[in-house]
């Protein structure tokens, strides 16, 4: 009886911990995916302007969001960056931009 009790207790404890780990697994994965790996790219504007933008390359399986602005380099006007998939974080602006998916 004692062995049965100990075995049942051990198995239930294990399953409970597995459940907790599984439950806490998804939110952590999403956050990590959104953070991604930063990189700096030069985005060429329509008038020959160059813009520096920080791109966050996300893990496969993450979803794209949307895009807005990037900052300009050496004058010129700011233009809306095309949402090809990456997170464009303006180097001096404050608005976040799009998300991307790593190939």
């Amino acid at each position: 009886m004692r062995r049965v009790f100990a075995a049942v207790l051990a198995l239930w404890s294990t399953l409970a911990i597995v459940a907790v780990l599984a439950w806490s697994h998804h939110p952590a994965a999403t956050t990590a995916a959104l953070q991604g790996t930063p990189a700096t790219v030069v985005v060429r504007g329509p008038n020959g302007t160059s813009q520096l933008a920080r791109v966050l390359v996300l893990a496969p399986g993450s979803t794209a969001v949307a895009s807005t602005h990037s900052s300009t380099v050496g004058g010129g006007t700011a233009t809306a960056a095309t949402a090809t998939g990456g997170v464009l974080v303006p180097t001096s602006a404050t608005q976040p931009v799009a998300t991307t998916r790593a190939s």
Partner: protein
Amino acid sequence: MSHVPLAWFLARASGLVAFGLLTLSMWLGLAMSTRLLGTRRQKALLGWHRTLVWTGLSMIGLHLISVLADPTLHFGLAAVLVPFAAPWHPGAIAAGIVAGWLMLMLALSFRARKWIGARGWRALHYASFLAFALVLGHALTAGSDLKGVSGSLLAALSLGPTLWLVFLRLLDRPRKRLAAAAAANA
């Protein structure tokens, strides 16, 4: 649907449960040798001590199978059975492997008393302290769930009562009680 690393979760969970069971078993063994709960409870203590040891060893078996089944770790049999053969954190894994073999030997040594003698068995049993230290080291260095505060908390919760019981054991309460009883009956 994102991938759920079930084998990895099972490895972590079974490792934690095994640690808990074996720590508890050690406390019961020390409670026996210090006569902490009196002489009448010795039989029950021994029964639970042995049950928890074998249940803990079974959980270690589950821990090994889960690690072997995990597709990310790529651990082979040698990596989980031979010290320093693991490709990831070999030192930390070796501590767990040596502790596991020690615990298995200690559990089996009880059945080998007729060959090694009661004194030999009792001397061998002191290796349980080494096994505990190695298990704790393995948990803190290889354990994914024991970084930072949780690791310190686990160490405190497991070491605290252990050190207290060892201190009681060192005070040699059983022998002093025996001497007092013998003197009273002289």
